[in-house]
């Protein structure tokens, strides 16, 4: 039998089996939020959750990432490269949208003459055990981005929550191998498989938000100077939540952090956001993206125009975090709707 069953009370066993060889990341509760944390006590794993507030991209691309450490002795400088990252990770409970975001992240980080080997290495050493979303949120719109709440292609192992147990399916070779190692998993019955299919259908139907993204890049490209950018950026407060918590955002800053009163420190990269005025401010004082208008436009264009131009796919996974967490309620879905209307207006003009 290809598909197996993992009882929920066997999660501890699963953890104990794997934690010897892997850093085991799973959803946990921290300050009333769900985040992906490195598990030390399997009892901490939260199984009934929608999705994490901070996307699991931080396991590949941490908020603070040490590039190297240094010591300064007068005019002599000692550089200490970070240790080789050969630790293996498991991300248990990743949602399909976030697993898809890993494809988008790796497209970017592995592209071009200069590849981000730190992140590529982490990805290589990471296994995804994901879970389908039986109950998507009202802000979810993965089905508009050719995804669905049971999309398993981007995972290594895919689980379906069947109340007291999970249906377990190996997707990648990596995943299939791992399942073989977990020889104590029992075979799934036909009833289990049918139930999973049923849940998948229900979940897909539960996503009511449908936004039309078919021609979005073509609409956006010629409308760089459209007045719509003024409209959709009016309520933006430039806090950057949408991009910090976006599973596909990749921007970072690089700074030297000195240990106070000691001649040593580290060069780190930290998450940055294109919604900040400092992000593009030239030393001369000139700023090519001087107001929220340009900055909001850049974020939308990056996801829905530039990324598709460079990689042939949308730069959004439909997780809805930016919709749900924006303190000013600037709803991406509404913005897309407005953008789509630009084109309709044009068509109307043509027909007249």
């Amino acid at each position, binding site marked *: 039998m290809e598909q197996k069953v993992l009882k929920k009370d066997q999660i501890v066993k699963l953890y104990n089996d794997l934690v010897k060889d892997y850093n085991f990341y799973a959803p946990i509760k921290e300050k009333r939020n769900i985040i992906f944390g490195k598990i030390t006590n399997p009892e901490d794993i939260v199984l009934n959750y929608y999705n994490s507030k901070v996307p699991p991209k931080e396991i590949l691309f941490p908020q603070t990432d040490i590039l190297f450490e*240094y010591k*300064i002795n007068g*005019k*002599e*400088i000692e*550089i200490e490269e970070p240790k080789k990252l050969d630790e293996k990770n498991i991300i248990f409970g990743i949602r399909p949208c976030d697993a898809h975001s890993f494809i988008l992240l790796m497209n*970017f*980080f592995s592209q*071009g*003459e*200069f590849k*981000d080997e730190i992140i590529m290495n982490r990805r290589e050493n990471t296994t995804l055990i994901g879970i389908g979303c039986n109950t998507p949120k009202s802000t979810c719109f993965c089905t508009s981005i050719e995804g669905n709440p049971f999309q398993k292609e981007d995972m290594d192992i895919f689980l379906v929550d069947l109340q007291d147990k999970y249906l377990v399916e190996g997707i990648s070779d990596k995943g299939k191998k791992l399942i073989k190692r977990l020889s104590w998993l029992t075979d799934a019955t036909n009833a289990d498989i049918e139930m999973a299919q049923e849940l998948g259908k229900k979940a897909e139907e539960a996503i009511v938000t449908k936004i039309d993204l078919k021609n979005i890049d073509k609409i956006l490209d010629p409308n*760089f100077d459209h007045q719509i950018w003024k409209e959709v950026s009016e309520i933006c407060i430039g806090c950057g939540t949408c991009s910090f918590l976006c599973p596909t955002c*990749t*921007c*970072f*800053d*690089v*700074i*030297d952090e*000195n240990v106070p009163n000691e001649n040593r*420190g580290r*060069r780190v*990269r930290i998450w*940055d956001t*294109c919604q900040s005025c400092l*992000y*593009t*401010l*030239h*030393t*001369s004082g*000139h700023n*090519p*993206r001087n107001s929220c208008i*340009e900055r909001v436009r*850049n974020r939308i*264009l*990056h996801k829905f*125009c*530039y*990324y598709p*131009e*460079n990689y042939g796919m949308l730069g959004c996974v439909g997780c809805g975090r930016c919709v749900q967490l924006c303190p000013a309620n600037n709803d991406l879905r509404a913005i897309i709707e407005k953008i789509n209307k630009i084109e309709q207006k044009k068509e109307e003009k043509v027909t007249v």
Partner: protein
Amino acid sequence: MLTTVKDIISENKVNDIKTLELVFKNEEDYKSFQYIPGQFAEISLIGKGECPIGIASSPTEVGSIMFTIKKMGTVTSGFHNCEVGDTVGLRGPCGNGWPIEEMKGKNIVVIGGGFAFSTLRSLIIYILDDKHRKDYKNITVVYGNRDSGEVLYQPDLEDWKKRDDINVILTIDREEEGWTDKVGFVAPVVKEVAPSPENAIAVVCGPPIMIKTTIAVLEELKFKDEQILNSLEMRMKCGIGKCGRCNIGNKFVCVDGPVFSLAELKEMPSEY
């Protein structure tokens, strides 16, 4: 790569622009650092930070590499406080640089403003080198500054003015006693000099406003979009197309540029 400060030259009267000459601590690093004019590098002071600076030296100036730095923030102030013998970190070369191969056999019009002249100096020194001079035709240089105290690379300019195979036109924004060259912004001076677009390439480097006004003049002079090359400035961190901020549309200035032809710029949003 680590380098050592070999020499420090103060470039202007107010002493907020300095050129640092660096030598590689490791011979292998020097050999691997193959660059062309127009490229930049990320230079850093450990403990202060890193910043992208255009390479002011030419690869024909063997043995060291030069950066001209204006004192602005933490890192650049750190460079200004450097002493001979200090250690400077270096990553690069970054960016595409001037297309020196495609420019062969052409008349070259070099237009620069302010201290963005550094990579233009690199280009001019490269072309004027005995090995390369025959590959290029006439060279016209228009170099503008706020005032006479801001004119960089004085010894080089004096050398060039003595030569008959390069025409150097200097301009400053306002009249000054003793100033015998042109007065006025770069764009109108280019209009007055009116270089011919015939078999020519114009290379433009300066503040964004100068680039924009100069492009308009060159278009008036019937330069085609492909004949106008611009080196753009943008805030950068990584220099390798990953940190995100130097994008114009779907291009990154650090890896796809900093040199873009006007034809390329017209395909991109005007967000620079």
